[in-house]
């Protein structure tokens, strides 16, 4: 397992996971609302959404801790709805790791093998192999309380993987780690996931984590699936206003759609200027009120800008953020627009009150949605 690589045809392929119309009600409230996700074997999928959007609920349903109100969980083509957690072949790393405090690290890792009836020798050698995989081979005799947070997490990962599960579930696994350690562990988890080829679901409310680690990202809001796409698509071609604003940041500008076809649209902004956009979603027709989302890095401050796409504004504030400079600029209709630019020109930092002109760095980058 350790020597296998994803391109190697002998590498183990994870099982597929299909969540088919999953709905979960708690009394009167709906925590998960008709979520369908078709996950490929070996894929790393991030469930991304704000706190309370139903991520943990969905994870608990997959693990079998919770029986869903409606829908089916199908692993490798087989429905597992009726199976208790101990017969689902799922591995979980809990947010607080949930290591058994009264067992050594090696006993923790061997726990699942013991439960499955493996003999002592197998338990010991397998536990050692898993600990080596997470680079903790020398700490098997310690107790969890004697380990750092990052080490505890590695143990939790080794324990989950030791029973060779079909699906690996990670519930906000990096939330408790400090920033440097978090990056190390993200790389580590990604490495191990690639090596083992195990289908993995990563729950997170951290968009950077989701975008950097996942093959595909499922964005959830209030129990509903907003979009399920590769990270670049989530960022560049968001399906909804929610996704556009939750992932990355966006300036929202009101306007009227004047022209739209499959290749793109044109919107007359309330702030002045006629801006080219991506093709509008849904049945937006010319004449509709729309909201245009423009990412701060898709705009530039340019005193010499000319043409229909240009907006006039006044600098409210300039923030030098090291590699970039962010200006907040009040435009014609009173909206504050953020503009983020690489600080190539070191003199670029405008004083409040400076009148400026704004323009998109390229045509057709803005997204357009029906006005909220």
């Amino acid at each position, binding site marked *: 397992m350790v020597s296998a690589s994803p391109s190697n045809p002998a590498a183990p392929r994870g099982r597929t996971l299909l969540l088919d119309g999953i709905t979960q009600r708690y009394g009167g409230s709906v925590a998960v609302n008709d979520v369908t996700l078709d996950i490929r074997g070996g894929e790393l999928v991030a469930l991304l959404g704000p706190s309370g959007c139903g991520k943990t609920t969905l994870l608990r349903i997959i693990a*079998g*801790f919770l029986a869903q109100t409606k829908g089916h969980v199908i692993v490798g083509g087989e429905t597992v709805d009726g199976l208790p*957690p101990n*017969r689902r072949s799922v591995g*979980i790393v809990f947010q607080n790791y949930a290591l*058994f*405090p*009264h067992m050594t690290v090696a006993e923790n890792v061997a726990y699942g093998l013991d439960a499955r009836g493996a003999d002592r020798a197998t338990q010991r050698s397998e536990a050692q192999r898993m600990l080596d995989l997470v680079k903790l081979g020398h700490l098997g005799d310690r107790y969890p309380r004697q380990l750092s947070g990052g080490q505890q997490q590695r143990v939790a990962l080794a324990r989950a993987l030791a029973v060779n599960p079909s699906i690996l579930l990670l519930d906000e696994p990096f939330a408790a780690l400090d920033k440097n350690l978090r990056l190390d562990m993200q790389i580590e988890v990604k490495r191990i996931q690639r090596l083992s080829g195990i289908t993995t679901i990563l729950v997170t409310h951290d968009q950077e984590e989701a975008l950097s680690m996942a093959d595909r990202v499922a964005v959830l809001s209030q129990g509903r699936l907003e979009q399920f796409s590769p990270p670049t698509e989530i960022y560049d071609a968001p399906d909804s206003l929610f996704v556009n604003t939750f992932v990355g940041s966006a300036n929202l500008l009101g306007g009227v759609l004047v022209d739209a076809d499959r290749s793109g649209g044109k919107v007359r902004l309330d702030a002045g200027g006629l801006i080219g956009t991506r093709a509008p979603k849904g049945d937006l027709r010319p004449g509709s009120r729309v909201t245009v989302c423009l990412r701060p890095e898709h705009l530039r401050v340019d005193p010499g800008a000319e043409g229909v796409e240009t907006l006039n504004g006044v600098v409210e504030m300039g923030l030098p953020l090291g590699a970039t400079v962010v200006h907040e600029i009040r435009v014609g209709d009173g909206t504050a627009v953020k503009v983020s630019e690489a600080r190539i020109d070191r003199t670029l930092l405008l004083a409040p009150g400076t009148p400026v002109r704004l323009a998109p760095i390229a045509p057709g980058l803005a997204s357009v949605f029906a006005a909220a």
Partner: protein
Amino acid sequence: MAATLRNVTTYDLRLAAPLALGFVVFFITPLVILLALSFQADPQGTHYGLTQYVNFLGDRFSLGVLGSTLWLGVKVTLLTLLLGYPVAWLHQRAPSWAKGIIMLLVLLPLLTSVVVRTFAWVVILGRQGIVNAALASLGLIDTPLKLLYTDTGVVMALAQVQMPLMVLPLITALGRIDPNLADASSVLGAGHWRTFRKVTLPLSLPGIIAGCLLTYAAAITAFITQSLIGGGQMLFMPMYIYQQASTLQNWPFAAAISIVFLVAVLVVVSIFNVLGRLSRGYTNA
């Protein structure tokens, strides 16, 4: 800063002074007097020696009373643990409305006097009592069973009376266990029984030990319940001491028995304490 800290400490000590005084006057002093009394060779106190202790330790009857009292504590503690653990476990898993009801049922005995509760057991266990009436009307027995004034009766009544002392520490201990641990266990392939045996039970050990300690100490010293349910036929240490002191006016012997009993209890308590410290080291995260 340092001055403020010192002020806080001295202030704290002064707050504890009334309690400390009460402790000295009402606990240490009587204990010292008791100890002195136990070394009197005769009730008049004409000379001193180990006579009373020699009498007690050389007397099979007295040793029998001590033994049966300590053994009674063991039986009551085991029964209370056996009955109390499921209650605490249920409380842990119950929805919050049911938690309130279970807690009320557990605490209810503490809200009534021990005398009242014990008399209720007299009614339940008597020859014409509820148990016998029920068994007879079901046709299971012809003649009433003898339950009152038996060892079984005393153990049952004591177990019920001391139940809160067992259940409350157990509820606390079970409540401290991270619920994710049971989930982690089951997802790793363990069934309910294995999860209980390997995770829940070992992690609740501090509560088991605390509960056993409290129940044991309460059961062997439960004068009222022991004497009312045990009746005249059964003699346990508290009643034995009372008879020697009050009825026979043999104060030195009563004092010596008390000291022997105290030492025996202290030995048991320190065994529990050692176990408790071990289990805490073993379960602390």
